[in-house]
């Protein structure tokens, strides 16, 4: 049999029917649902008198809109409340498994899926959210879909899809102290660009990925979408199986052994064809930070803001000039030392217990600068509980960070957590688009360690000086 990649195997094992135009009816194993992209899909089902084909393959959770304080109070913002109540009604009417807001298990959908063992290797996983790529870290084909597709999966448990191309990103070298998965993925996006992965599924390989923990792999795959890829993947291995073992919805005992035996067959075969290969050595990688309004606008913390005048293409030049204006930066200015107003540690990119531990290490025994608003938002209620058991909440609170309830929070500022116009934030989230953290907000994407360091110094800074 022809040598196949991990993606090829995931794809082939889910094709229900190949249609003449190259599209396939692709079977979907898991459908994760949240309050923002589902109401119109449920409405569509209702209007056409359809039901979910497999409610027991579906899991709904509230994350985008939820306040991160005073959870026992009614939700103040009228439209947020309506959207949340719509989901609560819909899961009842359509019998969809649902994690209520006040449950410990509540959290960001892409944190909850792996944490509960709902997302497993070898699966196809979709959600009406682009960062569904996160679940690819388990060796599952996981990608974001629009609301029409949400309805389609609900009604048919399938999607109409065309196969993607294979892009291998091989990461080698030894990371220096202070370098995390976030710095690596920012460097990758800086190298290949936000459209570098368009039409492709990225498989992350190489010794760095093989030695990386699941949290790091999730950070990598989470931001595959920021490189334009449809999905990110890491081949499942012992680290993956160890992570899954004992999780609530993972197979148990004999079933687990059988599952692992199958999951072991998923890794890319020797000699399989990739349409493109990108190699990156991280020996000399420094902590990375974005300066502009696209995740590809990335420089090392020791670097300077680029000068758009050097760009030949006019529309590109104008775009970068506009970014500098929006971000309030000057060409050639060192990025280190730029004063900030806020930091945000959280989001499906960087809100796992490992992320909080690193940030707490930096925060320990120090104080947040007086002018900085510092927000720590765990990815799930269970992570929050774990962090509290380890005393991380105390470290954060004593240092002057706010310790919040789980949710998407200031990654996209759909809830009350948002910046004021013109405010500058070092953020562990995934997008630095204009207005992302509130109208006219300024976002610099960084790792959790870098965000914590910035909070203490009150400016963008090199975390290595604080380690």
């Amino acid at each position, binding site marked *: 049999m022809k040598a196949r990649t991990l993606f090829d195997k995931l794809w082939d094992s889910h094709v229900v029917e190949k*249609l003449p135009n190259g599209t396939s009816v692709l079977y979907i194993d898991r459908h994760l649902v949240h309050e923002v992209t589902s109401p119109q899909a449920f409405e569509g089902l209702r209007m*056409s008198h359809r039901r979910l084909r497999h409610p027991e393959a579906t899991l709904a959770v509230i994350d985008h809109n939820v306040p991160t304080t005073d959870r026992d109070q009614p939700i103040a913002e009228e439209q947020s409340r309506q959207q949340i109540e719509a989901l609560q009604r819909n899961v009842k009417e359509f019998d969809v*498994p649902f994690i209520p807001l006040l449950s410990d298990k509540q959290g960001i959908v892409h944190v909850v899926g792996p944490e509960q063992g709902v997302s497993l290797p070898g699966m196809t996983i979709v959600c009406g959210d682009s960062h569904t790529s996160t679940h690819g870290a388990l060796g599952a084909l996981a990608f974001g*879909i*629009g609301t029409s597709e949400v309805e*389609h999966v609900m009604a048919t448990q399938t999607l109409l899809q065309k196969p993607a191309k294979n892009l291998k990103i091989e990461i080698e070298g030894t990371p220096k102290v202070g370098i995390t998965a976030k710095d690596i993925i920012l460097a990758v996006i800086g190298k290949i660009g*936000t459209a570098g992965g368009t039409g492709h599924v990225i498989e992350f390989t190489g010794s760095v990925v093989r030695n990386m923990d699941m949290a790091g792999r999730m950070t990598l795959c989470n931001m595959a979408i920021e490189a334009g890829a449809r999905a990110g993947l890491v081949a499942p291995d012992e680290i993956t199986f160890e992570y899954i073992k004992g999780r609530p919805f993972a*197979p148990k005992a004999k079933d687990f052994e059988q599952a692992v035996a199958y999951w072991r067959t998923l890794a890319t075969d020797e000699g399989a064809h990739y349409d493109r290969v990108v190699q990156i050595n991280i020996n000399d990688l420094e902590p990375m930070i974005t300066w502009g309004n696209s995740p590809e606008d990335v420089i090392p913390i020791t670097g300077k803001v680029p000068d758009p005048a050097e760009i030949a293409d006019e529309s590109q030049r104008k775009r970068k000039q506009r970014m500098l204006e929006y971000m309030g930066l000057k060409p050639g200015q060192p990025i280190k030392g730029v004063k900030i107003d806020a930091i945000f540690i959280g989001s499906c990119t960087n809100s796992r217990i490992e992320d909080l531990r690193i940030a707490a290490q930096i925060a320990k025994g120090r104080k947040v600068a007086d002018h900085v608003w510092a927000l720590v938002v765990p990815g799930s209620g269970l992570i929050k509980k774990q962090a509290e058991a380890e005393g991380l909440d105390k470290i954060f609170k004593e240092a002057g960070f706010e310790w919040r309830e789980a949710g998407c929070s200031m990654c996209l500022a759909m809830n009350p957590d948002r910046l004021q116009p013109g405010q500058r934030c070092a953020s562990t989230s995934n997008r630095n688009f*204009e207005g992302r953290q509130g109208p006219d907000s300024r976002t610099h994407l960084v790792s959790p360690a870098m965000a914590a360091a910035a909070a203490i110094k009150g400016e963008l800074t090199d975390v290595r000086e604080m380690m």
Partner: protein
Amino acid sequence: MEKFDILSAIAAPLLEANIDTDKIIPARFLKTIQRSGLGKFAFYAQRYDENGNENKDFILNREPYRHAQILITYENFGCGSSREHAPWALLDMGIRCVIAPSFADIFFNNSFKNGILPIVLPRAICDQLVEDCKLGANARITIDLKKQQIIRPNGETIDFDVDPLRKQLLLDGMDDIAQTLQYVKEIDQFEEKRKENQPWFPSIQSKELNP
């Protein structure tokens, strides 16, 4: 979904690459539980000033472009989030066709499902069409989906590619679910085979979530 066959309309140039979905519709406007009504929030940050008044410099606020049904833009249009609110907002403001050198994958798929035709053409041809946009209030660009042709104001035609299945669904105004439900038997068989081969495959039971 509204059918798409021939569209003859004003086209507006948006001369930027990487126009992301947050730019098309900022996250704070995603709280609706309906598909309609998002048009007034499209391109919000560029379209309105801080007091919510129209920004006269923004192209889609100017005559004749405020009546545009076609957008001509640059690379990687629609990058970022999977929010279908982006095509809903465009559709609600009257846009039925977007022409660009490239699109982000999810936005590209979402467009078709809402009766918006995304057309991929090389940058040089997009630039020609941008010139056509400037020919004044009476100039129109025509999109003939059946023939897969764009007819410029000067009568010249430009051929474009479109996936045959997507084309048919657009021409018929038919939704994907009806199309897929023709394969229900195959889906049943797939599930039976899986039960046999992977008896360990877990399901999600509500009672385990809320004991």
